[in-house]
């Protein structure tokens, strides 16, 4: 599989013989510099460029071209070479763009000898730069790796070479561009050439460490790459003052994964873990400080000699001062970490795809039914009281491993207590419909079939968007008979699929069998349920997820109290969501209580209808 690199990301190389391909859409000069173990370019003979295209192990093109193919043999490089940087520069004069900001983003591919792409990198974010370091191949503990760099230079090739320590950089840069010039004016045919140039942006200093994950990324094992010094190009101004060096600007998608979808998912979970741990550190320091203060004061009181008088007061004051000082330091660290995570959240949130995004994200307005389901969907937001403005998207993997339960009961929180019962039930239904809409929107057309049980018809108004846009398999089932029918049908489906899976005979399913995943939405439980139906529901909750039958309940547990403890396992097996903010979710690392907030559609927004309309249309196209 091809790894789609983001700036700063590295990737192992399978072979020492590689082909670097550059596609720029406009003529660029490609070159390469060879650096020693400290990244310095010792002299002109360490640079492959149009004026001197052949160096041991590498050959670049002699002209500027819109496409380059550069053959590299890392094994043939001199032993002293520890780094090979691929450079791209815009030819001077001529009709081409004078800066990368006005041209299409160059695209670089690293391919193995068989021509299979190993890693690709699109150099984005360039503006006034006219030369960039696209990527570098570097030795790490005997093996070679590639890293996406994307460091650009406003001062052009001369600045770039000077930054790498090349002697007489300005002259060298002029010579390189001159050598490439003759072919630059007429647009050259896309000849397979060597020497792609490396794009980069000098406007931001790059750190290869992950901003949020810096502390101890799980991937950063003993073999991991230490973060090199950020290139200090002349125009490389750190974005936010002196702290920027230790706290680089975060980038969306800056995490491991093969696709942007997966990277963002991992990044969000990384932020979740970092926030959990940061808060754990703060709480642990706070508890310790409080405990210490109590102990010190107890000690003062326990000693008759200091209980009253100046000595006692002084001891108490000293204990309080220590407490203040400790809390001050803890707060400082917390603020530092939260500022970093907030900055990361600010870049990540707008970059999220629809399935991960809040309903007010503009991405929903451009919604079209996806070709492939995403890794996860967002079921709401999470935050801790220390910084309630910092919201972590609550992403849950697809397919759902557990059923969902939107609790319409009064719950324990003050927010729920302020609302009357009817209002809570209405909110629960609304948020359930928003979850259903999101699940439908996340699935490609025809791969999720939704059944709704609404025995008393109490949810008719809330379910209207689903009914009217035609996204349901059938109208909501009414009455005891409707409940029995749907449950019988789904139970039979689970039985059949389980038999097929066990017998390894999935091709023997009856003709016309709907291959889509099924989502059963249950409203008004246990109204309209007899004992048999309850048993079936429990069976579906237990056995359904493994064969693609999922459950979403909108219920108040108190309504089913008559069943006694028999239903406890059912409620426990479901992921409880609330229609109002409630702190019932624990994280998997330290077990803080997180406040969950359901996703809300902005008031007056038609986004839900619009998205459901798209889903319904895709569904009709698919079946028609």
């Amino acid at each position, binding site marked *: 599989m091809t790894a789609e690199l983001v700036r700063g990301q590295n990737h192992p190389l399978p072979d020492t013989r590689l082909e670097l391909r550059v596609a720029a859409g406009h003529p660029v000069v490609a070159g390469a510099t060879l650096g020693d173990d400290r990244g310095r370019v010792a002299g002109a003979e360490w640079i492959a460029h149009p004026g001197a295209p052949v160096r041991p192990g590498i050959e670049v093109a002699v002209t500027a071209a819109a496409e380059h193919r550069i053959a590299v043999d890392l094994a043939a490089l001199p032993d002293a070479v520890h780094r090979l940087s691929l450079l791209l520069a815009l030819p001077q004069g001529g009709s081409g763009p004078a800066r990368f900001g006005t041209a299409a983003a160059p695209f670089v591919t690293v391919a193995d000898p068989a021509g299979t792409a190993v890693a690709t990198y699109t150099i984005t974010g360039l503006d006034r730069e006219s030369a960039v370091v696209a990527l570098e191949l570097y030795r790490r503990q005997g093996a070679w790796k590639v890293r996406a760099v994307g460091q650009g230079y406003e001062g052009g090739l001369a600045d770039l070479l000077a930054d790498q320590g090349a002697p007489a950089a300005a002259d060298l840069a002029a010579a390189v561009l001159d050598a490439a010039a003759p072919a630059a004016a007429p647009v050259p045919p896309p000849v397979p050439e060597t020497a792609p140039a490396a794009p980069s942006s000098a406007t931001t200093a790059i750190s290869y460490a992950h901003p949020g994950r810096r*502390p*101890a990324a*799980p991937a950063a094992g*003993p073999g991991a790459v*230490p973060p090199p010094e950020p290139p200090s190009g002349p125009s490389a101004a750190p974005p936010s003052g002196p702290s920027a060096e230790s706290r680089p600007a975060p980038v969306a998608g800056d995490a491991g994964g093969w696709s942007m979808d997966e990277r963002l998912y991992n990044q969000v979970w990384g932020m979740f873990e970092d926030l959990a741990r940061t808060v754990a550190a703060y709480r642990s320091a706070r508890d*310790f400080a409080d405990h210490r203060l109590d102990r010190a004061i107890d000690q003062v009181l326990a000693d008759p000699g200091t209980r009253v008088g100046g000595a006692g007061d002084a001891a108490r004051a000293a204990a309080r001062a220590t407490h203040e000082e400790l809390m001050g330091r803890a707060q400082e*660290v917390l603020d530092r970490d939260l500022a970093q995570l907030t900055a990361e959240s600010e870049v990540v949130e707008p970059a999220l795809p629809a399935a991960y995004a809040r309903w007010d994200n503009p991405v929903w307005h451009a919604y079209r039914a996806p070709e492939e389901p995403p890794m996860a969907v967002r079921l709401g937001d999470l935050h801790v009281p220390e910084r309630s403005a910092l919201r972590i998207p609550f992403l849950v993997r697809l397919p759902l491993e557990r059923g969902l339960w939107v609790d319409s009961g009064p719950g324990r929180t003050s927010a729920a207590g302020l609302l009357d019962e009817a209002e809570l039930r209405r909110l629960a239904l609304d948020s359930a419909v928003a979850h259903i809409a999101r699940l439908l929107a996340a699935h490609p057309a025809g791969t999720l079939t939704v059944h709704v049980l609404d025995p008393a018809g109490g949810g008719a108004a809330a379910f209207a968007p689903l009914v009217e846009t035609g996204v349901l398999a059938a109208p909501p089932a009414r009455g005891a008979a409707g409940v029995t029918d749907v449950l019988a049908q789904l139970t039979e489906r689970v039985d059949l699929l389980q038999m097929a899976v066990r017998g390894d005979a999935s091709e023997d399913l009856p003709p016309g069998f709907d291959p889509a995943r099924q989502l059963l939405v249950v409203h008004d439980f246990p109204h309209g349920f007899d004992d048999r139906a309850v048993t079936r529901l429990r069976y579906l909750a237990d056995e359904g997820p493994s064969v693609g039958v999922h459950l979403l309940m909108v219920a108040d547990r108190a309504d089913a109290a008559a069943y006694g403890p028999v239903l406890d396992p059912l409620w426990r097996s479901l992921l409880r969501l609330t229609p109002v903010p409630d702190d019932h979710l624990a994280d998997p*690392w330290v077990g803080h209580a997180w406040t969950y907030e359901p996703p809300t559609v902005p008031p007056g927004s038609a986004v839900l209808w619009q998205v459901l309309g798209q889903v319904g249309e895709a569904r009709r196209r698919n079946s028609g």
Partner: protein
Amino acid sequence: MTVNMTKGQAISLEKQGGGSLTQVRMGLGWQAAPRRGLFGSRTREIDLDASAVLFAEKQPVDVVFFRHLVSDDGSVRHTGDNLVGGVGQGGDDEAILVDLQRVPVHIDQIVFTVNSFTGQTFQEVQNAFCRLVDETNGQELARYTLDGGGQYTAQIMAKVHRAGSGWQMTALGSAANGRTFQDLMPSILPHL
């Protein structure tokens, strides 16, 4: 430049040329001593476990070991249990990563211990060492080799503690007995 430490020696963890360390790795390596006599191929597996105990004013606050691989605050991480040792041939068999910048402010000492989980004494272990590595560039800062294994099943290797605005490492190298770090608590306390 590695400092070969002797018992009780302390070194400062300031970087050469100023700046303090941000991330260090405490690596532990060992090999089972060869057995004499018949059936030499029946290798004796020795499971040593590295643990780190975090102290605030001499009270244990958190511990990182093979059953709790990451401290709650995320600053100390164990890379995982190695049950047999010797795989690295001189490399680290178990490692604990410490992000010094993120260690909570009230934690002032981190003590590293090694226990023989399988109960063999250090007489049956050879080439055991612990070393402190600057994780940002892989440079070894200090190495402490266990010499002359004796009739004990645990070692309190070293501690990293706050000194001024930075951190210091002190080699402890004291023998103790116990299967996991809990058994060692009484032996650790005198070193704080």
